[in-house]
C-alpha cells in the first residue's frame, strides 16, 4: 500500500466526525438563544431581589418591637402599626373561616362527584372568572351585597366576606389539585369494602390530601393579607385607633395603612412608610415561602 494513500485516508477520518460549519453555526445559535432567554428570565426575577433589598435597607431601621406593638400617633406621622397588624389578622381569620369550607366543598365536588358536562364546564369557567375579575369590582360587589344588602355596614365581616369570595379560587384550585393527586386505586379499595362515597372521601381521600389543602390555605392567607382594593370601602378604616372587638367593627389593615400613609397623609417620614411596606411584604412572602417549602417537601415525600 502506498504510504501517502494511507496518510490521506487517515487525514480524512477526523474531519468526518468533527464539527462542520453548519454544526458550529447551530451551536452558536443554540448558545445565543439560551443566553437570550436566560437573560430575559433574569430580568424578570431580578426585581424581586432589588425590591426586597431596597425595602430592607430603607425600612429595616424602622422596624422594632415598639414599631410593631404601638399605635400610630401624631396624625399617623409617628408611632407604630399595631392596630393595622391586628386588623389584618382579623380580616384574614374571618375570611378563612368563610372561604375554606366552601372552597374545599367545591373542590371535593369537582374532583370526586362532577360529571364531565356543561355544568362542570360552567363551574370551571366561573372559577377562572372569579380569579380574573378586577379587585375593585369585587369591592363594588362587597359594597352592594354585604355592606348594603346584607346590612353588615362597613365592618370586618363585610370586608372579610368580600375577600373570601375573591380568594375562593385559590383554595378551590389547590384543594382540587391535591385531591386529584390521590390515586384512584385508593378509592377503589375503599369502595370495594362497601364504603359509601362520603365514607371514602372522609377516611381515605381527605386524609391523604390534607397537606396539599393546607398549602393552598397558606397561599390564600398570603393573598388575603395583601389585598387593598376589596377592603377599602367594605371595612378597612382610614384611621381607627382602637382594636376591633367584634366582626361588626371597622378596623385598620396593613395594606390599607400603607396606602393611606403613602398617598393621603402629608409629612409621614419615609422610614415609617418603608417600614410598613417591609412588614407587609415580609408577612406575605413568609406565608408564600412556607407554602412553597411545604409543597416541595410533600412532593419529595409522596410514595405513589
Amino acid at each position, binding site marked *: 500500500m502506498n504510504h501517502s494513500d494511507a496518510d490521506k485516508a487517515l487525514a480524512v477520518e477526523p474531519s468526518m466526525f468533527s464539527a462542520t460549519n453548519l454544526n458550529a453555526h447551530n451551536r452558536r445559535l443554540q448558545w445565543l438563544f439560551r443566553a437570550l432567554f436566560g437573560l*430575559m428570565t433574569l430580568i424578570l426575577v431580578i426585581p424581586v431581589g432589588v425590591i426586597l433589598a431596597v425595602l430592607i435597607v430603607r425600612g429595616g431601621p424602622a422596624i422594632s418591637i415598639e414599631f410593631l406593638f404601638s399605635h400610630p400617633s401624631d396624625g399617623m406621622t409617628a408611632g407604630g402599626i399595631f392596630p393595622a397588624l391586628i386588623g389584618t389578622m382579623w380580616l384574614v381569620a374571618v375570611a378563612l373561616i368563610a372561604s375554606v369550607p366552601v372552597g374545599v366543598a367545591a373542590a371535593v*365536588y369537582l374532583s370526586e362527584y362532577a360529571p364531565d358536562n356543561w355544568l362542570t364546564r360552567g363551574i370551571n369557567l366561573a372559577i377562572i372568572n372569579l380569579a380574573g*375579575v378586577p379587585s375593585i369590582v369585587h369591592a363594588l360587589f362587597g359594597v352592594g351585597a354585604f355592606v348594603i344588602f346584607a346590612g353588615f355596614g362597613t365592618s370586618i365581616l363585610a370586608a372579610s366576606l368580600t375577600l373570601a369570595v375573591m380568594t375562593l379560587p385559590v383554595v378551590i384550585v389547590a384543594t382540587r389539585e391535591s385531591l386529584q393527586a390521590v390515586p384512584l386505586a385508593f378509592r377503589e379499595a375503599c369502595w370495594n369494602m362497601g364504603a359509601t362515597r362520603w365514607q371514602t372521601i372522609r377516611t381515605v381521600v381527605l386524609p391523604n390530601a390534607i397537606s396539599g389543602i393546607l398549602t393552598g390555605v397558606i397561599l390564600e392567607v398570603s393573598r388575603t393579607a395583601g389585598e387593598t382594593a376589596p377592603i377599602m370601602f367594605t371595612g378597612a378604616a382610614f384611621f381607627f385607633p382602637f382594636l376591633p372587638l367584634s366582626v361588626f367593627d371597622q378596623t385598620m389593615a396593613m395594606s390599607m395603612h400603607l396606602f393611606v400613609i403613602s398617598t393621603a397623609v402629608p409629612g409621614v417620614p419615609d422610614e415609617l412608610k418603608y417600614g410598613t411596606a417591609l412588614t407587609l411584604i415580609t408577612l406575605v412572602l413568609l406565608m408564600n415561602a412556607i407554602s412553597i417549602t411545604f409543597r416541595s417537601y410533600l412532593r419529595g415525600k409522596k410514595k405513589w
Partner: protein
Amino acid sequence: MLAEQAKPPASMDLDHRGRDWYTDKAIAFLVFVGGISAVIFIIGIFVFITKEGLGFISGPLDVREFFGSPAWRPTSLREPTYGVLALIAGTASVTGLAMVVSVPFSLGAAIFIGEFATGRLREVLKVLVELLAAIPSVVWGFIGLSIMNPLIIDLFNVPVGLGVLNSGIILGLMAAPIMTTIAEDALKAVPDTYREAAEAMGATKWQVIFKVVLPAAKNGLVAAVLLGVGRGFGETMAVLMASGHSINIPTSPFDSVRALTATIAAELGETATGSEHYQALFTLGILLFVVTFIINLTADLVVRGAKKK
C-alpha cells in the same frame, strides 16, 4: 326457621338505606352546593353591581357621551358629565405599555424555564416567579411612588415621574408571573414525542423550540397573553398610585393618566350611596366586569380549541 334463613341478612341487602346512606346523600348535596358556589358568586357579582348601577344606566346615561367624551366631571356643580374616553385611554395606554414590556420577557422566561433550565435552576426560577406574583399590589404602588418616581425624574429629566411609563413598567412586572406560569404550562403540555421526533431528525434544541414546540403550544401562549392583559386591565392599587391620576388622553409616556379601576377606587369613598355619581361608578364596574369576562371567556375558548385538536 326456614323462612328466617331464606331472608338475607341486613348486610346482604344491597338496597339497604341506613344512616350512612342518608349521610352520603346529604353530603353529596352540600358538596354540590359548594361546587356551584363559584357560579353563584359570579352571577351575584353581576347582579349586585348591576343593581347599584342600574339607576344610572336607565336614567342619565348617554351612551354617546359616555364612550365618546373625555370629560369625566362627576362632581361638577353646574353640569356633571360622565365621559369615560380618557379613562379608557388611560387604562389602554398603561396596559398596552405593560404588555409591550412584559410579553416578550414573560414568553422568553417561560421558554427558558420550560425548555432550557433543568433541575435545581428550574425550581429556583419557578419559585422566584411565584414570589414575584405574591407581592401585593399596594406594595407595587408604593414602589412606583417612592422608588420608580424619583428614578424616572432623574433618568429622563422630567418634572413628574408618575405616569404611563411608571405604571406601565410596574404593571408589566405584575402581569409577568401569570403569563410566564401559564405559558410554561402550555409548553409543558406539548407531548415529549414531538420533541423526540424532531430531535431524531437532527434538529437542534432551538430548532425544536421554534419549529415544533412553539407552534404546537400556540393557543396556550395566546391564552397566557390574554390573561396577562386581563390582569393588567383590572389592576387597581398599583395603577392608582403610580399613574399620576389626572384625567388625560396621553400623548407621551411621561403623561399622567387615570385608569378605570383607579377612578372607582379614588372616588367611591366620597360619594353618597345611591347618588348619580355613585351609580356612575358602579356602571364603570359593570364595564370592567364585562370586559374581563370576555377576556377570560376568550382565553378559555382558545385553550379549549387547542385541546380539541
